[in-house]
């Protein structure tokens, strides 16, 4: 039986990807950001996943305004890094796990989460920056990845409660997969940031730190946060944090926080990262 042994959350700021690709990770501006991932980079070498279910959002790359799926599961054999307007990031092609993805799709739809199945999709920085942060710059990614794209571009995104319950359905799906597989789930995006309008640059460190402190021990407190509160407190783009709740919903009620990191700023955004052990 497959099982989810750990969860991870991280921001997916595009400038972080650019810093990696341009060799700037030791620059004074960027070093504190990358130092915050050292623990996880070492830990994951000892605890390699076979598959990562990677919850992220597409940024007007694979999905324009023609089709806006709330939840889209990547069921393809592989996913190419997208050209976001300045050439694709120089990172490996993402290898999917089509069998597990198909199993998850079938399971969660019967569990009443009617997601969209995607059999052809390029993946943008939302998916590849977290992989780079955790795995560095390998010639090939060391595991398979199932992309789970969530609409957070056009309001409203799914509620935190819906995301949390969807995570639970994903956990049930993984647990019912007949082959043994070591699976991680990553929730990406956030933390507080606003990229648009005269209020751009908003960062709410109190909100972010509360979110980081609470998602492990008391996710139900976060599930109750309404869309308006995300927009007002965490910024118009900070509402991406609902994606972390999919990750959290897929873990057990009790988890152990193995690592916690918070830093301001990376470009326009607050960076938050957690590593959660699901085997306690």
């Amino acid at each position, binding site marked *: 039986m497959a099982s989810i042994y750990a969860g991870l959350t991280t921001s997916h700021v*595009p*400038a972080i990807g650019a810093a990696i690709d341009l060799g700037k990770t030791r620059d004074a501006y960027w070093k504190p950001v990358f130092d915050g991932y050292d623990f996880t980079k070492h830990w994951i070498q000892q605890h390699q996943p076979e598959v990562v279910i990677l919850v992220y959002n597409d*940024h*007007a*790359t694979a999905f*324009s*305004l*023609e089709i806006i799926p709330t939840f889209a599961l990547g069921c393809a054999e592989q996913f190419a890094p997208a*050209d*976001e*307007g*300045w050439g694709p990031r120089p990172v490996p092609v993402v290898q999917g796990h089509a069998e597990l993805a198909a199993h998850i799709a079938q399971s969660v739809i019967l569990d009443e989460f009617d997601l969209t199945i995607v059999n052809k999709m390029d993946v943008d920085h939302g998916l590849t920056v977290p992989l780079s942060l955790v795995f560095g710059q390998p010639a090939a990614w060391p595991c398979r990845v199932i992309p789970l794209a969530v609409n957070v*571009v*056009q*309001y*409203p995104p799914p509620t935190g409660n819906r995301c949390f319950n969807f995570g639970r359905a994903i956990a049930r799906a993984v647990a019912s997969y007949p082959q043994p597989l070591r699976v991680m789930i990553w929730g990406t995006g956030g933390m*507080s940031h*606003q*990229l*648009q*309008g*005269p*209020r*751009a*640059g*908003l*960062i*709410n*460190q109190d*909100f972010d730190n509360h979110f980081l402190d609470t998602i492990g021990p008391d996710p139900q407190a976060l599930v109750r946060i309404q*869309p*308006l509160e995300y*927009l*007002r*407190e965490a910024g*118009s*783009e900070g509402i991406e944090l609902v994606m972390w709740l999919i990750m959290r919903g897929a873990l057990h009620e009790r988890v152990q926080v193995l690592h916690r990191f918070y830093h*301001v*700023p990376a*470009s*326009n955004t*607050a960076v938050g990262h957690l590593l959660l052990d699901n085997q306690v």
Partner: protein
Amino acid sequence: MEEHHDYDDIPGTTVFDAERSRRGYHLNMFCMSLMKAENRAAFKADEAEFLKRFPMSAEQAEAVLKRDWNRMIELGGNIYFLAKVFSTDGKSFQYTAAQMTGMSQEQYAQMMLSGGRSPDGNRSKSEWKNRG
């Protein structure tokens, strides 16, 4: 008729909801076209002519030509789509964010290094009434 939404009270913020998405459809699809190198070249060669390929409003086209980001957002533009335009211009998110806030890029970068814009005083339009 414009519906009123609770999020309309957040100052300096335009929530990209279904109505704005509908209004901004052609503007945003123009932005999306700049994902292709040949379209970027055609746009750079003659911006006004290229914009005629998309049935957007005259106001939207004018805002694009002027690079008036706040106006584009007001007219249904979404920041992740508008990013294709400033990337075509060779500009960064931080450059554009500074422009939208009326700050210099240096001032804006310094604000971010100092912890960003605080939510205090920036939660409700009522708090912005006394600003200039």
